[in-house]
């Protein structure tokens, strides 16, 4: 065996690398003149120990997709990207977004980087840092360690086997690890032969500088599966992240998309979220022989769903379906939807651990904070999506039904935002118990029509909206507020809400390092529930619980427990569970919560219940209000009464776990609760319920009890 001299023998590649490396060598010589190797070695020895980058990149869960976020000013392929006045600030933003590793370019000539950048970043973050440079000499590896790096880059194409092996040994002897970068089958084989623990596939062709996003997939089978696999280049949007993650990438390295994004923190988070769901989906496909609960495009969900609608509306439903299918596949649409969700609606929403509430309940409760979205509930997700649909169809008038008023407010909001006309149908009884929301809609420029037919609640508002739609379908989009109705509404509304579950899942993995034991949500039509369930449908270990409005109790006629006590029928366009009498006449539902006061339920919930994937139980008014008060008092959060049904569900789960497993084991159990909305609108109802105001105090709320 020949003694390696450290002189840095590199391969001639016949690509852009050769010229870059020539420059790197010149700059290196200049630094070596200035600081002798012995001095660098001493600095390396004095530096704090290197962090474990392999673990960081493996993530906390088999499904997590980690991000190596890069501080990058310019590149040979794209030229100048961003000025980056303060690399430390940018790196800290990446860290906040959940980046596993920060990569810092230190090459000066083409990438405009420096060791100063590395120093600044090292000082600013507590996660592993990659020194990204063209390593051709031992000196650079010592130098990386001296400047606090935990990872170096070794490009297989630029090194012969012997040098590669030597550099890797030196790197590890200093406590660091190397990202071993490959471009071809042959290079992957060489990386495997030297025992690389982190293998990168750079999908940019060194000769043409073109990105080939499918390269990762083609090389996937050959990649060493015990190593951490990193996809590099072409990571410009969630779509590519999804592609790489599906093909088995454990991490992606991205710079350009982040330095150009207005919101680097949010973009890192979004990439991790998308990546984790794609990895989960790919895993579910492998382990369940292809059956995926989450693969549910409609029109049918098991025996539920379909299109039980007048022929007059079929053309409009066809048009909507076609527009939606095209939009889903359109990157521009996705970007627009994500931009509005992020910059207007305040996504992603937080996942808050409710410690004092947990203590009272006896298990760990995490709240998915949809109450913090613009307009105060999850409803904004769906209206933004559907308003963009309306725009694509050239329709400028939006109509909507509303129960609690949350969906009406959200629709009025988006109509104002996009300059559209808006008419909201609301049961007369609901306009009285939610008078504040009526005022909000009118302030936003919408017309609110009180519906005086039938039971004067949500179902009658839907009937009236459908009557409007039949007569106005050429110019009007019916912006249905829940994941119910005729195809494509259930699948489409769910799609716009799936981000709730995707985020919650990724946040759980990041915050707890594991999936929750259960997910709980309230179910009226079921849009927040189906949105949060979807991220977890293929995780067999996660129990899914839907909580319906039990009103005065299931032993009374006054409730809205559609799945618990209903039977299948057709209403509002779908075959689903209904509250109906023997003749098929709809029975009036009752709940203290206007938003759950609906005698049908989205067809996908009917299917998940019939198939046993999700469990639905009723929560009475009184149980919901107890949970409402408990959250107010323990967490300083006033929840919507709708969401309080899910909170009451968590209380029940906690009790059940304590009974079955004992206090200690129950305290370790985790339930994620969809806190679908905030409770400002319910203050009058709650004050009356708890006897805080006299019965006559608030006339507008007269009918709430």
């Amino acid at each position: 065996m020949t003694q390696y001299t450290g002189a840095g023998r590199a391969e001639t590649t016949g690509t852009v690398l050769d010229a870059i490396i020539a420059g790197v060598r010149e700059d290196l010589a200049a630094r070596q003149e200035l600081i002798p190797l012995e001095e660098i070695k001493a600095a390396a020895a004095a530096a704090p120990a290197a962090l474990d980058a392999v673990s960081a990149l493996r993530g906390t869960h088999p499904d997590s997709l980690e991000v190596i976020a890069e501080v990058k000013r310019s590149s040979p392929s794209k030229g100048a990207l961003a000025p980056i006045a303060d690399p430390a600030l940018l790196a800290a933003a990446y860290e906040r977004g959940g980046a596993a590793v920060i990569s810092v370019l230190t090459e000066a000539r083409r990438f405009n980087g420096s060791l100063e950048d590395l120093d600044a970043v090292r000082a600013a973050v507590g996660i592993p840092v990659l020194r990204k440079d063209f390593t051709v000499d031992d000196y650079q590896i010592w130098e990386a360690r001296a400047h606090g790096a935990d990872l170096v880059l070794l490009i297989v194409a630029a090194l012969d086997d012997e040098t590669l092996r030597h550099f890797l040994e030196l790197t590890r002897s200093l406590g660091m690890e190397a990202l071993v970068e490959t471009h071809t089958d042959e290079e992957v084989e060489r990386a495997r032969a030297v025992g690389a623990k982190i293998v990168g596939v750079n999908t940019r062709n060194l000769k043409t500088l073109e990105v080939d996003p499918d390269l990762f997939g083609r090389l996937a089978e050959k990649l060493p599966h015990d190593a951490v696999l990193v996809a590099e280049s072409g990571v410009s949007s969630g779509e590519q992240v999804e592609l790489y993650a599906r093909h088995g990438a454990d991490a992606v390295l991205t710079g350009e998309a982040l330095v150009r994004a207005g919101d680097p923190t949010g973009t890192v988070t979004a990439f991790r979220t998308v990546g984790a769901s794609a990895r989960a989906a790919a895993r579910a496909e492998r382990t369940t022989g292809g059956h995926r609960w989450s693969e549910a495009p409609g029109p049918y969900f098991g025996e539920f769903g379909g299109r039980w609608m007048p022929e007059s509306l079929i053309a409009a439903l066809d048009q909507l379906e076609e527009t939606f299918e095209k939009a889903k596949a359109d990157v521009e649409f996705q970007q627009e939807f994500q931009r509005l969700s992020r910059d207007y609606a305040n996504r992603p929403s937080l996942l808050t651990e409710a410690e004092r509430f947990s203590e009272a309940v006896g298990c760990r409760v995490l709240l998915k904070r949809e109450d913090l979205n613009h307009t105060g509930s999850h409803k904004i997700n769906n209206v933004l999506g559907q308003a963009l649909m309306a725009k694509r169809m050239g329709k400028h008038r939006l109509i909507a039904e509303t129960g609690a008023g949350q969906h009406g407010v959200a629709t009025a909001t988006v109509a104002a935002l996009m300059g559209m006309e808006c008419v909201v149908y609301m049961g007369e009884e609901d306009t009285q118990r939610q008078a504040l929301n009526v005022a909000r809609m009118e302030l936003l420029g919408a017309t609110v029509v009180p519906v005086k037919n039938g039971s004067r609640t949500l179902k009658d508002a839907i009937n009236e909206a459908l009557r409007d739609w039949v007569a106005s379908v050429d110019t009007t989009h019916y912006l249905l507020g829940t994941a119910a109705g005729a195809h494509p509404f259930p699948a489409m509304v769910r799609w716009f809400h799936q981000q709730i579950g995707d985020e919650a899942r990724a946040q759980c993995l990041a915050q707890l390092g594991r999936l929750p034991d259960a997910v709980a949500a309230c179910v009226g039509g079921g849009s927040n529930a189906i949105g949060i369930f979807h991220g977890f449908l293929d995780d067999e270990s996660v129990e899914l619980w839907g909580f319906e409005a039990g009103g005065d109790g299931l032993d009374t006629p006054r409730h809205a427990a559609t799945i618990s006590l209903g039977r299948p029928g057709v209403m509002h366009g779908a075959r689903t569970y209904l509250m109906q009498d023997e003749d098929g006449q709809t029975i009036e539902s009752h709940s203290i919560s206007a938003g759950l006061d609906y005698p049908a339920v989205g067809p996908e919930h009917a299917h998940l219940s019939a198939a046993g994937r999700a469990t639905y139980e009723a929560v009475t008014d009184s149980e919901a209000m107890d949970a409402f008060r408990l959250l107010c008092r323990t967490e300083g959060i006033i929840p919507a009464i709708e969401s309080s049904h899910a909170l009451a569900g968590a209380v029940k789960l906690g009790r059940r776990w304590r009974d079955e497993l004992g206090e200690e084991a129950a305290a370790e159990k985790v339930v994620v609760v969809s806190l679908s909305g905030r409770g400002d609108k319910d203050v009058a109802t709650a004050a009356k319920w708890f006897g805080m105001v006299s019965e006559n105090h608030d006339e507008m709320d007269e009918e709430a009890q």
Partner: protein
Amino acid sequence: MTVEQPADLVSRILPAEVLTPRDSRLSARIAQCRAEGRPALVGYLPAGYPTLEESIDAAVALGNNGADVIEIGIPYSDPVMDGSVIQHATTTALANGFRVAQVFEVIEAIATRTDAVPIVMTYWNPVMQRGVDRFARELAQAGGAGIITPDLIPDEAAEWFEASVRHGLDRIFLVAPSSSRERMELTVKASSGFVYAVSVMGVTGARDVVSSAAESVVERARAAGAENVCVGLGVSRREHVEELGAYADGVIVGTALVKALGEGGPAAVGKLTAELAGRS
């Protein structure tokens, strides 16, 4: 040898027995009107409005004053295709205790006491809850000829195809101005007796001027192969009947009759019917 899978809606959705023509009282009656050089007069009244007895008297008056075909509506809690007049009537019927099985009493009275051909018009959930086959059997036994299904499209009608063939009932589906050519063909082929052409985009209700879209819907239905096309929504006067009768095989009157019943009882229904039929 592999058989090519036909992709069009008709071959995908319609079973062979639906495409096979068969004798129908309804078709025969419309053909007879055509032979007499006039459109069939099709009248609608809801069962149980204002009471079961009066709804029977009104239906008989309708049949004995010139209606060729009588549609008896089943009051339903969520009538999304109906305007305020019919909504009010069906809500009243329900409030007065109407039960679905009573529709067969009304049908039987028409079948035995008049010459008109009785059919049922109903939203689909009440039929589904009674059991599609059971409902069809009971309707046939009462002397009913078929069902008009305003919120059932052929795409969801597999069970109804089977039951209607078994019990010899006509399937009257609706076509609309918004129906695509492909859907027009599907719906026409799925229907028997006649095709119900919706003349305006909107809910039921009398209108002063009958929509100009009506003629084009009728033409398109004929082009798709419909033998008998009846037009509804908006008719309230004899002149409407004459106007529509120039191109349609039957003219459907609903809201105007319900209004007459509400204001003047069964006698007013008889009077309006005679007027619409050109007998007064």
